[in-house]
């Protein structure tokens, strides 16, 4: 925000109503005695490194060598300090140490200012091409904003390399897209916080523990899923030992709650509930090469839900979703045996994961679907022509349920698909 010139002079007639910014930490700013020295120092060095000096007069904001007009004379500095880039930077809430909030040294900044600074940070983060997968602590907050997890470029890169090696690069890509979208959503929410989010953010400044005050949920809502979890779901084994994915060691995949190991809701709760519309159901984070059951492998979903499917796709353990038991019915509301039913079901949530994932599963649909195809893959790839089926496969598809050990590895023909559940 623009700093109010009248306020600086002490003559602002709008007072609190003023639409410009009334910085309140003029005294704090002046308390940096060395600031003047920097300016002076800066002036001395211009001749020496003129050719390579970056940021001279270009608004490059730093404590170093301002190069802007306010620094030319020592005497002028204090008076115009508020107008300098650096001061404005301080008041934008990005400055270091004190002076971030313009509240004259109060311990607790006002809620309006908090939200304002968070909003500015979120905007900046969005626009500036910063690395998106990072934790974030607002200035002068007592803790990080929960729900934003650290993921370093090296980790992501290693994940990509491994995924490429294991032939699940598409899944990796979609996981990346998922994470980016999730982050964008969060940034949007930070820019326009709901009432609950507002309270949560403000309480950050009061030093409340994140898990304690939010009950272990992401402050961004129930549907939030942490970045690490997104990648783990896509088959990454990189984050197995991290605490945030503590749920990995339990058999139930996290229900979209972040960084809380105790968030292990029952798996059927995950599948049967509204998460269908969010992270899990709609997003193609499913199969990758290591062969486990697709959902809820009885040996414990160590790579959790959706992380794996054998390249032979659905023929694995009795039905499309791993166990031919209630878990399946919970997932898409369909009995397990109609694995074929999955394809017949017109809902994109069902089709999308597999339309995408199938591109990775070797031999499942023949040719890999284009990446990001999702539900856009043409129907021809989803069904095997009836003429191509072997007798055994045909028999299986025609039967009311699959027999273990004889489950076809190719999709059923359109003709045999039962649309009625």
């Amino acid at each position, binding site marked *: 925000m623009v700093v109010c010139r009248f306020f600086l002079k002490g003559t602002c007639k709008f007072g609190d109503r003023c639409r410009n910014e009334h910085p309140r930490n003029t005294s704090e700013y002046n308390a940096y005695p060395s600031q003047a020295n*920097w300016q002076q*120092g800066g002036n001395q060095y211009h001749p020496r490194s003129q050719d390579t000096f970056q940021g001279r007069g270009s608004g490059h904001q730093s*404590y170093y060598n301002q190069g802007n007009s306010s620094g030319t004379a020592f005497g002028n500095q204090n008076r115009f300090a508020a107008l300098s880039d650096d001061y404005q930077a301080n008041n934008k809430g990005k400055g270091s140490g004190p002076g971030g909030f313009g509240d004259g040294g109060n311990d607790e900044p006002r809620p309006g200012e908090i939200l304002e600074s968070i909003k500015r940070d979120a905007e900046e983060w969005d*626009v500036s091409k910063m690395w998106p997968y990072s934790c974030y602590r607002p200035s002068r907050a007592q803790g990080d904003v929960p729900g934003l997890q650290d993921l370093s470029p*090296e*980790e992501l890169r290693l994940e990509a390399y491994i995924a490429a090696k294991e032939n699940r690069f598409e899944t990796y890509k979609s996981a990346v897209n998922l994470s980016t979208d999730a982050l964008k959503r969060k940034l949007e929410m930070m820019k326009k916080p709901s009432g609950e989010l507002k309270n949560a953010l403000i309480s950050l400044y009061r030093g409340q523990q994140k898990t304690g005050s939010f009950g272990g949920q992401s402050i961004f809502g129930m549907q939030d899923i942490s970045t690490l979890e997104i990648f783990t779901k896509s088959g990454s084994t990189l984050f197995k030992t991290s605490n945030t994915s503590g749920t990995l060691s339990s058999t139930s995949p996290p229900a979209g709650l972040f960084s809380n190991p105790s968030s292990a809701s029952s798996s059927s709760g995950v599948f049967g509930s509204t998460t269908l519309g969010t992270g899990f159901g709609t997003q193609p984070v499913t199969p990758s090469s290591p062969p486990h059951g697709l959902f809820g492998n009885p040996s414990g979903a160590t790579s959790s839900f959706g992380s794996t499917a054998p390249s032979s796709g659905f023929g694995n353990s009795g039905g499309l979703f791993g166990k031919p038991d209630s878990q399946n019915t919970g997932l898409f509301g369909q009995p397990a045996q109609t694995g074929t039913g999955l394809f017949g079901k017109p809902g994109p949530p069902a089709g999308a994961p597999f339309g995408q994932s199938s591109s990775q599963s070797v031999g499942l649909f023949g040719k890999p679907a284009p990446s990001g195809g999702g539900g856009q893959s043409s129907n021809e790839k989803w069904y095997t022509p009836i003429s191509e089926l072997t007798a055994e496969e045909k028999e299986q598809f025609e039967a009311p349920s699959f027999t273990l050990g004889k489950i076809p590895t190719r999709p059923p023909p359109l003709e045999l698909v039962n649309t009625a559940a």
Partner: protein
Amino acid sequence: MAFQFGGSQQPTSLFGQNQSKSKDFEVTSPPDDSISALAFSPATVPLTFLVAGSWDNKVRCWEVQNNGQTIPKAEQMHTGPVLDVAWHDDGTKVFTASADKQAKMWDLNSNQAIQVAQHDSPIKVIKWIKAPNYSCVMTGSWDKTLKFWDTRQPQPMLSLQLPERCYCADVMYPMAVVGTADRNVIIYQLDNQPSEFKRMESPLKYQLRCVSIFKDMKKNMPTGFALGSIEGRCAIQFVQAQNPKDNFTFKCHRSNEASTYYQDIYAVNSIAFHPEHGTLATAGSDGKFSFWDKDSRTKLKTSEQMEQPITCCNFDAKGQIFAYAVSYDWSKGHEFFSTQKKNQIFLRGNASEDLKPRNRKR
């Protein structure tokens, strides 16, 4: 075209190859993928060697001559990308840490490498510690542990738990600093036995990227460290600050937008302190490096823009050569990764002059 090195005219027998825009020397036969770490041999060795670890799973060693020429000497392979390298203080061995969860000790004389460390996750940092009464290898990994290894035994001498995945670390006896995910910074003191001295939160608001210890020039003892984050900002932090205002942060590696609109912000990938002057260099994702004087809080120089981000940088033992690696750091994800792009390491001579601190008028 004559290159300048040390201010004198240079025989043109140097690199007729790729014309780099700058007058810095390009290292011959660079790695095939991004360079993750650079390290020069210690002062105990008369010749200067440069070792670089790369995402192509290899560690390479060059001899660097005074005229800027580099001669590839040897290389070693890991089964995963090499994430960090460190020299033994006697200059005969190099320690390499890799994403294959192992660290190896490479004996340069025999060109053999043996495994010296094992973690449950990729090892991100490796350092050599030389104390009066012990010496060991320190490895920090994404499995949230910091382990210390006697190279002769398969079990670690000491294993310390970290609050989160280790992202960066630096060692300058008797101090070690480790930066982890979620902005934790832990300071260790290494006398007698490594033990945790202080745990704090980084003053920066975003993910940590790199850390480098600086020393008090007069006392020749480490007094603080510099932290770099993804947010185009560095923090200078003293371990025992006389005055809380001694600790400060500054912005760097941002594009020159007008101050009212948001700038492009780039990560600080690497920080290195000059061994003699105590001034520092920062390497950024924007493809530029800058030299700074932290005591007078001024910027000394910014380089021209390179074609790719600068992933790491380092000084040689005497502070004459500044090496920086230009390669993709994954800051924009996989879309911007291309195997066609060159990965380069440049050596900049005359570093002593460039990094001379400004006269301070305080």
